[in-house]
């Protein structure tokens, strides 16, 4: 992909790959917007189950936000050439991401325990769809962090423009997925 790099011109401040990632985020946003719109339309039609979201989802939100903070800190330490902090926080962020997925699964079990099942009233089904597809995207984000970890431990530590760009792309994905979850959970709370 030397093409994109070599064709860059000084007047374009944003790197094409970074811009492409933003465009991709816009399309993912459209998919979730479609589901939340469907939620609103379906809710307005009545026959709608009212329930309170299990607490674990809120705890998990805080955990996901915290993972964004650790990843960002890792990026800052990378730029300041603090190698051990950069590597350590990268690992911490990855583990927090895994924990988030596990806790989301426990959240689903809590939902089932209070009688909100996937196949029941669409009010509940939507929560599974939102969190399930967000979880799938988190898997993609974790894959990006995993690649970053491989780079961190396999390559000789050196701050280069190319590696900085790679890290910034990973960071953008992860922050975006945080923001997406924040949107989802705020939406569910405000709608019920």
């Amino acid at each position: 992909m030397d093409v994109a790099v070599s064709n860059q011109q000084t007047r374009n401040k944003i790197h094409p790959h970074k811009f492409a990632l933003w465009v991709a985020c816009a399309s993912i946003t459209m998919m979730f917007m479609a589901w939340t719109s469907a939620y609103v339309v379906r809710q307005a039609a009545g026959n709608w189950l009212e329930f309170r979201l299990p607490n674990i989802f809120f705890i998990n939100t805080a955990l996901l936000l915290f993972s964004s903070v650790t990843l960002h800190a890792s990026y800052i330490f990378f730029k300041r050439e603090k190698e051990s902090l950069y590597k350590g926080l990268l690992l911490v962020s990855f583990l927090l991401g895994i924990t988030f997925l596990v806790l989301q699964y426990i959240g689903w079990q809590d939902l089932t325990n209070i009688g909100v099942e996937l196949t029941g009233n669409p009010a509940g089904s939507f929560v599974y769809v939102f969190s399930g597809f967000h979880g799938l995207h988190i898997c993609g984000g974790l894959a990006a962090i995993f690649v970053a970890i491989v780079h961190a431990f396999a390559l000789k530590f050196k701050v280069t423009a190319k590696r900085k760009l790679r890290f910034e792309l990973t960071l953008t994905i992860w922050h975006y997925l945080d923001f997406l979850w924040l949107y989802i959970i705020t939406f569910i709370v405000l709608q019920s």
Partner: protein
Amino acid sequence: MDTVTTFDPDILIEEQGYDDHFHDHHHGDKYQSNFITHYVFSQDHKIIAKQFLITGMFWAIIGAGMSIIFRLQLGFPEESLAWLQPLLGKWIAINEAGIGTLDPQFYYALVTMHGTILVFFVLTAGLSGTFSNLLIPLQIGARDMASPLLNMLSYWFFFLAGVVMFSSLFLSTGPFSGGWTAYPPLSILPQASSGSAAGMTLWTVSLILFVVSVLLGGINYITTVLNLRTKGMTMWRMPLTIWAFFVTAIIGLLSFPVLASAFFLVIFDRELGTSFFLSDIYIGGEALDRVGGSPVLYQHLFWFLGHPEVYIIILPAMGLVSEVLSVHARKPIFGYKAMVYSILAIAFLSFIVWAHHMFMSGVNPFISNIFVIFTLIIAVPSAVKVFNWITTLYGGNIRFTSAMLFAIGFVSMFISGGLTGIFLGNSAIDIQMHDTYFVVAHFHIVMGIAAFFGMFAGIYNWFPKMYGRFMNETLGKIHFWGTFIGAYAIFWPMHYIGMAGVPRRYYSFETFDAFSHFDATNKFITVAAIVVFGLQLLFVVNFFYSIWKGKRMTTRNPWGATTLEWTTPIDTGHGNWPGKIPVVHRWAYDYGKDGREFYPQILPVSEDESETH
């Protein structure tokens, strides 16, 4: 052609061009080293464009061939179709007298597959995939797409979608048969019809792969246009083709994810037992326990893509036609900025008219009023474009090449089909017209035939750029006149049938006395369809013959066009320009100015020029 000899593009680019040190790196091997990386898993945008085009042609033959089979049923219901049994197998039932009849279930499958294939595989991937890939880097002065890897993946996801869809044709239960719109409950309940079983499963898998392909492509097109334009290529100097592909990609990127979200919910309803779209359904007198969903909700989600989709199909055709008309009329496009603003207006409006597909689905009539108004407003930017095309032709020094004929034909088709859109956009008239052959005639002319004409104009015009040879002009003209007259012969009579209330998608009208006097019309339409189909095969022959045996290109700018793709060598290698990349000094439409035939975009502006953009 004195103007051509007054400058040499190579020398001009070497003097004026911008050195991006592209050829300092050694990546020839990576792209051209062996057959697999050069022709199969290629990351070069020009090869990917050809892959999209040829795959699109394959699907066009399949999709159009299906329409011939169901047209035979509609035109000649009493004739024996036993001769089709070797091809269709058990879908042709033969009775004791040796008369073969088409299985009604398979008739519906054919109609469904015809729509799906033509809309998605041919007119989305085959049209926008081909020309966005070919022209975006070449016309904006870029070495390749922003991400050649994603670009390659875009094609291979499309290919995979095609493999899945193609395999569904061979299922013992048949491919999906519930209409290309896949409305629930037909698309959700496997017991609804045989095509709703495995056929529908493969259909959804295929289309989700297709959405991935469109998104990967679209991300690339948008990023490339915004980030990789060469020096001097401001947005207002871009050819209208690029504007059209750019806006098309934005529409696709915003609407295809919504389609995916609808399909995911369909999959949930089918496979996991949720009830997003199901409620109050009785099968064989038994009430289904799936309640609480809304089938109309699916229609909202589907048409939120579905309507923008028709502009995803027609905008690239409009862009190609604008360029071809201007080049072959030797005149600047009339109202360049108005053309751009009307593309943007159409794109914006396309997102707020979706419910005009649902006037009869039980939506609130007062809400319908709003959608009627927005729908009719689309006539304004559409009319702006039509008037500008006609004004571009007016007083032009027109060269009636095959490309130009198809471009003019496009304008004719777009007017004819667009006018009936004004009828259908009215919710009151739609009570009579909905689901009749009037609708079939409308959308086939305005987005089927018109889009194909735009595509043909593009293929005839840019074939030399793709293969270094010309297509045969005589065959091209036969192709044009036959298709032009034939397409009207197919679809014009359908308006009358539709106004009389004949419903679309029906297998047979034998039991309807009111429609019996249309038998002859239906026969006429079927014969015309067969003739037009034959002419498309002629085009395919011309296409492949010309790749190897066509007249060779001897000059690099055969049409005398201003745009950058014609400054590349005849055999364009990876990276498009052998040395520096060209720098742009003017807009793309300096034709017939100050007594000169044309000024290429790479020519610096001299002091004695009258008007520059």
